């Protein structure tokens, strides 16, 4: 009996160890890329969602004849944590000999993996991680299509001036702003950019409150905001603390004129369902382009959603797939125009890319800095209305009019 019990425990523990998913080796006459995402572990859900966008871009390209007549083949690398990201990047570059790697969704994974590819002189195309330093380290072959944390923070602060103040018929300087954020690197970074931007724009920040994302009680934070009379709250958070904040805000009867968040903590349906559609009503969110966006400002977005549904049988779970799809397409075009996978030729081709804003499926343009960062990626302002996340700003991408207030009232 004892032996059995021990064997059962050992088996259960073994089952919990994630296995790396790999594809068969490449055939001839193809161009090989690595797809480095977290496919297992805690980041797996949105890692997989990101990968789906890349996969759809590859299929579309292959159906249209591939890259310069060669079929694209990709080899998956499972990056559960930074250590494994390094290991998988090494495997992809030295064993599988891929011509480039696409990834990664999570910033810490991207920061680790790009060090390997840079040393190996292999281009790394980042399609979803937002940490600024990824393209601030002077790397030659790291390129990124998506917006960075600083872009997110700036968009949040600018939205107060460009969207919220006009809707409330007040001057931006008269609004009292509260900045709250979870106190890990993510929250510290974004709120740091927010503070700098708010100061630059002359806004009145009355409270800056960090808290632990593992906090089980945010009532003190809410009472501080309430005492300070904050009209607009900017929150940088994960899911749990977003849910807690909204629930306890209601318990304490605190009704600011606007609450704005960014990223996963605000965009996912789970968050909205846990908070309740009526309590989430009016919450503003700055994020990658989501699906309720005017297709005139994001040509191809409707087609992408349809292709996604045809392949995976469900609606896209977040905007990550769309951002990865858009990024992969931009880089495929660049590699095609380079007519080679040589890193220097690819770099020259990427730097020559010039797509105006509003001509890709995400609505972003593409124009890369010397550092490899896309300078035309603009996150949109969205709002929860009737249980749906709809784009409300800028006006040409909007599908609904922004409203003020929070909760159904």
């Amino acid at each position, binding site marked *: 009996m004892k032996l059995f*019990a021990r064997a059962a425990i050992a088996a259960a523990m073994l*089952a919990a160890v994630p296995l790396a998913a790999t594809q068969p080796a490449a055939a001839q006459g193809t161009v090989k890329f690595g797809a480095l995402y977290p496919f297992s572990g805690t980041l797996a*859900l949105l890692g997989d969602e990101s990968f789906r966008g890349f996969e759809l871009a590859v299929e579309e390209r292959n159906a249209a004849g591939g890259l310069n007549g060669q079929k694209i083949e990709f080899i998956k690398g499972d990056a559960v944590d930074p250590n494994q990201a390094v290991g998988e990047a090494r495997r992809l570059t030295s064993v599988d000999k891929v011509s480039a790697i696409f990834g990664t969704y999570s910033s810490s994974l991207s920061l680790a993996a790009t060090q390997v590819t840079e040393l190996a002189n292999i281009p790394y195309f980042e399609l979803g991680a937002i940490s600024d330093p990824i393209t601030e380290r002077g790397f030659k072959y790291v390129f990124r299509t998506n917006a960075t944390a600083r872009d997110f923070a700036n968009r949040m602060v600018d939205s107060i001036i460009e969207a919220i103040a006009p809707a409330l018929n007040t001057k931006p300087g008269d609004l009292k702003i509260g900045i709250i954020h979870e106190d890990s690197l993510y929250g510290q970074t974004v709120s740091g950019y927010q503070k700098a931007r708010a100061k630059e724009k002359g806004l009145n920040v009355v409270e800056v409150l960090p808290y*632990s994302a593992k906090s089980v*009680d945010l009532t003190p934070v809410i009472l501080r905001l309430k005492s300070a009379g904050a009209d607009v709250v900017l929150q940088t958070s994960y899911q*749990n603390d977003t849910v807690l904040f909204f629930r306890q805000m*209601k318990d*304490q009867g605190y009704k600011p004129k606007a609450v704005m968040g960014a990223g996963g903590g605000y965009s996912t349906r789970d968050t909205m369902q846990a908070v309740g559609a009526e309590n989430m009503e009016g919450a503003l969110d700055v994020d990658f382009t989501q699906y309720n966006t005017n297709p005139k400002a994001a040509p191809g977005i409707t087609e992408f959603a349809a292709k996604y549904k045809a392949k995976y049988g469900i609606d896209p779970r977040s905007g990550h797939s769309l951002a990865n799809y858009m990024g992969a397409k931009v880089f495929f075009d660049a590699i095609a125009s380079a007519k080679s996978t040589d890193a220097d030729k690819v770099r020259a081709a990427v730097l020559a890319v010039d797509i105006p804003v509003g001509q890709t499926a995400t609505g972003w343009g593409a124009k890369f800095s010397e550092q490899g960062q896309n300078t035309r990626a603009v996150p949109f302002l969205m709002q929860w209305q009737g249980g749906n996340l709809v784009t409300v700003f800028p006006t040409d991408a909007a599908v609904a009019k922004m409203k003020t207030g929070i909760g159904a009232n």
Partner: protein
Amino acid sequence: MDVLIQLVLNGILLGSMYAIISVGLTLIFGIVRVVNFAHGEFLMVGMYAAYLLAAKFGLHPYAAAVPIVILLFAIGAAVQRFLIQPLLGAEEHIQIFATVGLSTALVNLALLVFGADLYSIPPSAAQGSVMVGGFSLVKGQLVMFVCALALVAGLHLFMQSTALGRAIRATAQNRNAALLMGVKVDQIYVIAFGIGAGCVGLAAALVMPLYPVTPTIGTYFVLTAFVVVVLGGMRSMYGAFFGAMIIGLVDSLSGYYIAPDLKEVVYFALFLAILIFKPTGLFGLGRGTE
């Protein structure tokens, strides 16, 4: 002044949540003498059970408390019988490693089954708040407060006035003497571990309406639970109850008057001070009993 009263009320209600989570940990530590690092994961398992019962059978977590307590009792008893008991002769740190391993295994099992998403039950009345004299009290927390009092009182009665309770106390006081008196010590340990886990099952059912569940939810609560247990004098249920109240109040007040990210600094500083000046905890029985 209004804010102060609101914070104090909030602190007491928060304390009752910490209390109801910590009582089970105190029992297991006090009787079985095992530091159960998987306590937070028991809470997580209980919350997933509450979620499933609500999602599949439409059972409100308060009604689901009975099956969840039974389930957690069974899990706790099984852990003691098949994981801890074979290690009772080994050194204490081996048992600690076993519970740490169990905790990691349970978190990863939850990741495998449920993924990293958060799940919550449909909004219910427990989430709302009532206004009493201009102060807002969350209904779900009031329920927790009443249940925490009832749980401590119920366990007190059970320990004092039943034969099984006496046997449990005897085992806790002196294992060998109890064995000589004909108490089946191994069985008592299995039951005590089960009761401790059952208590956290009750906590899970009460916490579920207020917090969404994720595989790592246990880590949100468990560190505080350990502080509460040590503060309360390690083995004392009543100590744990008052320790929880103190932590709740400190949490609430320092979060407002100092800074929300520094509240842990404040209560860990308090914790260290108590350990230095009264090493057996606030309600400890004196040196040698810890």
